[in-house]
Each structure stands twice: as structure tokens, then as C-alpha cells.
């Protein structure tokens, strides 16, 4: 399931993030890549512990923490600390790859199983050419280039790539999420059910049927969630 979460960051926060990361020292993105993907990765990244990354990450997490759509779609259990990348000039693309399944958080040494990947766009789409995130999803290939502040959520199991940036710079924040519900299809089902119930509850008073559907949601979650 590929889902766009619009306006995770409002304009000001986007600008603040941009300002923070723009002023920071960038390193070669291959530093964080596995051996296979490092062959196709050609971008720049902020070191995980850069102060700017820490501040900007805080802004992103703050915004995510109040974003119901993100929560309900991802059902997050753990989020690997968001990172920032930058594609421009000679370092402008990231070929097809699959994200690592498990990442270990350097500070806590805890493992995060990467069920979902997310990219939060920080550059305005008309400020650069190229740079589409192309995701090979079960529905075929999808090209994603969103407004600054919007986020795309997609299964980490999918093959994806970033097209070369031919003009301007593409700044983005990306992260991996371990979900309480491990399987993509189950998560998708829960999301659909949730949205359907939401629509019913918005349009009508809670009828006994809605209450029972809500119960179904919770019982499915009880059955599937690992917390």
C-alpha cells in the first residue's frame, strides 16, 4: 500500500527544517548504505548525529506525533530516527534497491524491523527537475514527487529508486517504521476498515452496526498486533 499523507509539516516547519539541514555538513550517502545498495546510491546525507539532523528530526517527529492519518496507516511501534538526504549536482540519484530489513539504533542498540519506509519531501517540486521517487509496488510502478511537507508511506519490501535530479536540489527526510502489524496486507485491511468506520461515524450517528464494526477493528488488532 502506498499512501500519501499531505502536509505533515506546515510551511513554517518545512522552512525551519530546510534551514536547519541546509546549514549542516553533508556527507556521502554511501556511508549508511548496505554493500549492495551502496553501488547504486549516489546522494548526500546528514550524519545521524549531526546537531542539525537532531533538531530537524525533532520537528518531524513532533509533526508526526499529531498526525492521525500517519498513525492509523502505519500503526507504528518504533520509528528509526529520521534521516535527511539531498540530491543535487553530481550526487543526484539512487538506483533501484530494497531497504535493509533490520536496522540497529546506534544509541540504544535496539533493533528496528523496517516494515514501512517513508519519505517526507522538503523541497518544493517546482524548485527541481527529476528526483521522482519510483516505487515498484504490487500495483506497478509509481512515480512520486510531492509538495514540500507531504509524506509518502510505502512498504519497505518494495523495490524503489530516486530518479536523477537534473536541476535544483531535492531535500528530503526519510525514515523506517516498525509497525505493530507486521504484514502489509493486514495493515492495509485495518486501514481500509478504519477509514470506512470513520466515514460512517462522520456521516451518521453511531449505530449499533458501527459499534460492532469498531469492535471488529479492535479485535483484529488484538489478534495481529505485536506491542
Amino acid at each position, binding site marked *: 500500500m502506498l499512501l500519501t499523507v499531505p502536509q505533515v509539516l506546515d510551511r513554517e*516547519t518545512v*522552512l525551519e527544517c530546510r*534551514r536547519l539541514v541546509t546549514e549542516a555538513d553533508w556527507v556521502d550517502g554511501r556511508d549508511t548504505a548496505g554493500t549492495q545498495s551502496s553501488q547504486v546510491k549516489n546522494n548526500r546525507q546528514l550524519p545521524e548525529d549531526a546537531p542539525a539532523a537532531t533538531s530537524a528530526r*525533532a520537528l518531524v517527529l513532533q509533526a508526526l506525533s499529531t498526525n*492521525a492519518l500517519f498513525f492509523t496507516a502505519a*500503526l507504528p511501534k518504533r520509528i528509526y530516527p529520521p534521516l535527511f538526504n539531498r540530491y543535487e549536482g553530481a550526487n543526484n540519484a539512487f538506483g533501484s534497491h530494497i531497504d535493509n530489513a533490520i536496522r540497529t539504533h546506534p544509541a540504544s542498540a535496539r533493533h528496528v524491523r523496517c516494515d514501512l519506509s517513508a519519505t517526507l519531501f522538503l523541497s518544493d*517540486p*517546482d524548485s527541481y527537475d527529476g528526483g521522482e521517487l519510483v516505487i515498484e509496488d504490487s500495483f506497478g510502478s509509481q512515480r512520486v514527487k510531492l509538495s514540500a511537507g507531504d509524506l509518502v508511506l510505502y512498504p519497505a519490501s518494495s523495490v524503489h529508486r530516486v530518479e536523477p535530479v537534473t536541476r535544483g536540489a531535492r531535500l528530503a527526510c526519510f525514515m523506517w517504521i516498525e509497525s*505493530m502489524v507486521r504484514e502489509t496486507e493486514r495493515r492495509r485491511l485495518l486501514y481500509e476498515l478504519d477509514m470506512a468506520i470513520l466515514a460512517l461515524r462522520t456521516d451518521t450517528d453511531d449505530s449499533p452496526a458501527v459499534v460492532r464494526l469498531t469492535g471488529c477493528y479492535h479485535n483484529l488488532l488484538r489478534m495481529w498486533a505485536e506491542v
Partner: protein
Amino acid sequence: MQCAKPHRTTPAATPIHASRNALPLGALVTGMLLAPIGALAANETTLPQITVQDDRLDDTPEGYQGGTTRVGKTDQLAKDVPQAVTIVSQQLIEETNANTLKEALRHVSGLTFNAGEGGRIGDNMMLRGFYSFGDLYLDGIRDVAQYNRETFNLEQVDVLRGSAAMLFGRGQAGGVINQASKQPLAENRNEVALTGGTDTYRRGTADINYVLGQHVATRINIMKTDAGSTRDHVESEREGVAPSIAFGLGTDHRLTLAHYYLKTDNTPDYGVPYFELRPLDVPKDRFYGTTDDYERNRTNISTATYEFSITPDGRLRSVLRHADYTRDLWGVAPRLAAGATSASIANGTAIVNRNRQARGGEEKTWTSQTDFTTKFSTGRFEHEALIGLELLDEEAGRWSYNAIAGSVAPPTTVGNPDASPLLPASYGNRVKNGVVTYEGFTWAPYVQDMVQIMPGWKLFAGARWDDLDADYSTGAQVEYGEWSYRAGVSHQPTDFQHYYFAWSDSFNPTSDLYQFTPTTAVFPAERSRTLELGAKWELLEGDLSLRAAVYRTEKAWERNTDIETAANNPLLTRERHTSGFELEGAGRLSERWELFAGLALMSPRIDEARPGGNPNVEGVRPRNAPNYTYNLWTTYKLDHGWKIGGGVEAKGERLAYGIGGGSASITPNKVPSYQRWDAMVAYEQRRYEIRLNVLNAFDKRYYESVYENGGHVVPGTGRAVQLVTELKF
């Protein structure tokens, strides 16, 4: 239809507790479990400045000729001001039915309009290619808050070109726009006007002046407007009251107390996005916002003015003002979603995203301004001197709104925009992000002398010191002390000719009015200087004023005024300039034929990129700065009280593009040039007048306001017809 459902009061026994605010279940299950982070820091605030005041106790000027103005700090005839001045007279405002300041300024050459985004809303003008919203004044006092100004209480609008900090305090390069309020008059005079028009245009105004006693008069202006527009779903509601009272009219001590209240509530219109560097080619009424969008402003300005004629030539004038502004915006800017193609635009299926723009602000200022003007002689030299002091205390807070999750306007399509989409129940639930505040105090003494060195020849020079001390809640502190100067020579061989050569400068310490203050880099104040050579002629025994000017204005350390990019990019350019030529005429060609016309040719260029900026901007024409603008308004009186008139407003091609870093080549969006024609017919009698205005008579599609960074551009009005009935008693 929309579904902002009321909260229900009979919760069923569901496992989801009392929240009836219809959040997704998953969101509640997982809870907002991420560690809360400290308050968001938004590096912006508001900051302003000082100035002087206008008083016009004599009758309103007739016709389109400027008459007197205080833009030069003392009461002067426009023809005597040794700097380019355009005066939009009350008659011009009325005959063109210009109800907003913006409409009134359509008749000013070399002026273009910016569209706002989230960062800056309200009136936003460019003069001679430089942004000028920090140079808006009301009776000589800084009035730079973000709101949509009305004309119901305006006597005239003065536009003084070029850098003007010596006269007005900190400001930019293009010039100063000064609104002159209606003042109590020593005669009973009342006017009531009702206007109706196409697109449900309804407006009522009253202007009541009443003499209360021998030296006391009161005046009240009232306005209520409720209007649609030729843009689908775009509406505007406005109401205003402006009472004033003057004591001591006709005596040596005069005191005027005035209050101005304006409330506006309109649909913010972000126009259309660009496609392939041109405004999206769709009908001009097509609106991509939603009917739930709003922009609300409330303005309260209280002013006390005391004037004392100490001697026939010596006058003290002291003004104290408190101004209080609030604004609140919830709108959406259209952006074409990725993947739009000519085909998907042609068949209307291309997706338009709606970019939320939501924020609010409050500003409060206290201003005290005292001017002493006098004439004296030293030997053979005649002096006209001005000494003044201005104090300005400012307080501002601003914030953005973080809509609760998911409460965004859904995307729509190019061909069939849905202005009333099914919105989330939480749409418009405004969660304030942290308030960024700004507090500033400025004191500024100034002095100017104009010396007649021989008959017909004057030298003038002035200097002003502005001392600003400001604090932002973001931790930034700004302390500036800056000098501004004005000097020149003025030659008036006869009453009907005036030639001058003038130099003036200006400074501005922060990015004006979005108050973006970089915390990591401190740059010098913006600096601009203008050299101008001009001529003013009074033709036809003074009935027709003509003026011409050539000038060059340079600006250094230009601040970015747009929150869109200011955070990354506080400086826009290191150096830029505009060279230009202006020609204007105003007045009467015969008993029956009047005209107001202007032509501005400009050659604006960016000379040097900001430090670390993209060098490719050098040599490029700045944004929203066309190579030419021209305007004409003319009327002809027929017999029996009939009058016909019409005119044109034209602007050359304008560019819109981001000025960032990197080394990408600059590929601007291009907004096409346009001509808009208006027409009027009126039947004027002593006690009443009926007037029919046709705006944009040829129903031309044109783009009035340009969002400088690109992104969107706002179409001007389509053809509209308004019928005004005015009673005088």
C-alpha cells in the same frame, strides 16, 4: 457539500471513549506516542517604523491634479516637491469606483502587485521593481500591518518615488505610499452612496461632516460592502467606521481625534498554478480553493493630532497614534500535482493539490511624531527648516496553525475543481503553533533645511538618525543605528516650471515585515539610494500638470520577504538596481476634458547574487518588475450633466522565480503582459449623481498579482458592472 459535523451528544457504548471528533481508530489506539518535542521555533516576527501626518482643512481638491500633499513633511503643492510624486485624487478614486487601496493604485505607473502566500497577506505592492509593503503609511505614520486596505475614509493616496528614509524612516527603495484620511471640515456636508453590481456586489457608504460649533466639527465615514467577484466562490465582506472630531478649526491650536475601524472577511484567492512556466490556461473564473477558506482582518487605529501655529511661519505638529491589527488566515494555494501533462490538463484530469496556508497575527504599535517647521532668513538666504522626532513602540506576535491530523482539503482536478469538497470533520480546527513575538523600540530625530540661495534656486539637505532596538522570542536581537539622507537642488524659474536633481537613501534592518531574522548570520541593513533628475511643468495656465523623471535606484543587501524561502535564504540579492523613466500627466485639457495618465519604462536588473547564492541570477530581470507599465483615465463632460470616461491599465511581461543557491540556470515563470480597459458613464447633478462603471470592459483574462517565487498567480477581475447612486445633502 461538506461535513463539518456537529458533535453528537448521545454517545453509544462503543469501545472508543468520548471523543466524538471522528478520528481514525488507529490513531487513538497507538496514541500520540512519540516523545513530545519542544515548541516549534519559527524565525519570524513583525517590525515597523515611524513618520508624519496629513492635514487638509481646506476643501477637497478638484479634479485629478494633486494639489497639496504632506509627503515632503510640510504642506506643499505636489509641483513643488523635488521628488517624483503621484497623487491619486479623491475624484479619480470615485470615478473609477476604486474601493480598495489596491484598486486605487492601479493608476500609478511603475507599480505592480504581489500575491501573498502564507507568509505575507494583505496589500503587497512593488514600486519601480522593489517591494514596497514596508512603505505603506496612513497620514504619514507607518501602517505596515498585513491587511486589505479600503478607500472609504481616504481623501487621496500619495506615492512618493525613490528612497525616502529621511522623511519616513526605515523603508525600501521604490518609494512610499501614503494614504491621506478624510478630516473634519468647517462646513456641513453629507454624502450617502449605494452601489449595486454584477456578482452580487453591494456597497453602502456614508460621509457625514457636521459643524458642532464655531471651531468644532465632526465627521464620520461608514462603509459596508458585501461582494462576490468574477472568480467563482470568491467573496469579500467589509465593514468600517471612521469617526473624527476637530477642535479649534481656524484657530492657532487645533486638535483632531480620530478612530479608524475596519473589518474584512474574504475568501483568500491564490489563483492558478503554473504549467510549463506559464499561468495554467483555464477560464479566469476558475477557483481552486474551498468555500471554507477565509481571511479575516480587524484594524483599529486611534490618532490624536495637535497643531499649533506658533507664528505665521512656524508650526508645531504632534501626532500620537495607537494601532492594533489582527489577522487570521485559512486558505489553500493550488499546486499542480506531479505528473500533469498537456493532455491531462487539456482533458481536465490533472490533479491540483491544495497547499494549506494558515496563520494569524497580532500587531500593536504606539507612534509619537512631532514636527516643527519654520521659515527664517540668514542674511540673503531664506530657509525652510524642519526638525522632528519620532518614537515608535512595536509589539507583534504571529503564528501558524497546525491543523489537526488529516484535516486537509483534498486535491481536486484542473477541469472540475470542487470548491465544497467533503472536508474532514476536523477541517479548520486550528491548533496554534508557537507564537513568535517581536518587540521593538525606535527613536529617530531628523532635521532638514531648504535654502533659497538666489531667486528660483534652492538647495536642500536633510538627515535622520534611526535607532532601533528589537527582540524576538526566537532569541534574535537586532540593534541598529542608521543615518539616512536626502539632498538636492531645485530650480523653479517660474511658477510653472520646476527642475530638480535629488539624491536620497533608505535603509531597512530586517526583511521587512515578515520580520525574518536570521539567527546564524547577521547582515548589514538593506541599503538603497536613488538619484533622480526630474522636471515638473504646469501647462494650460496650471490646469494640467506634467512631470518627467529619469532615475537610478540601487539596493544592496536585499532581504527576502517571503517565508517561503526566507528560512534558507534570508538575503535575496547582494546588489540590484532599476534605471527608469517616468512620464505622468494629470489635470484638465479643457473645461470638459480631464485626464490622468502615466508611463513608466523600467530596466531593473540584478547585479550581484547574495553571498553563496546562485550567480546565474546576475543580469536577470527581478521578479514582478515589468519593463513597462502605462495607464490612462480620461473623462469628458457632455451637456446636461452627463459625463463619459474610460481608461486603460497595462503592464509588461512579469517574471516569477525562486532565487536560491546552487548553480542552476534561472528559468522564470512568465506572466503575460496585459491591457485592461475600463469605462464609465455618469449623470451628475448638484444633489445627486448616478454612475455606471464597467470594469474590464473587454472581459480580458489577465493576471493582476504575482506570487514572486512562482507557484501561483492571481487573475484580475473579469467584466463587472457597478451602478453607483450618490446623494449629497
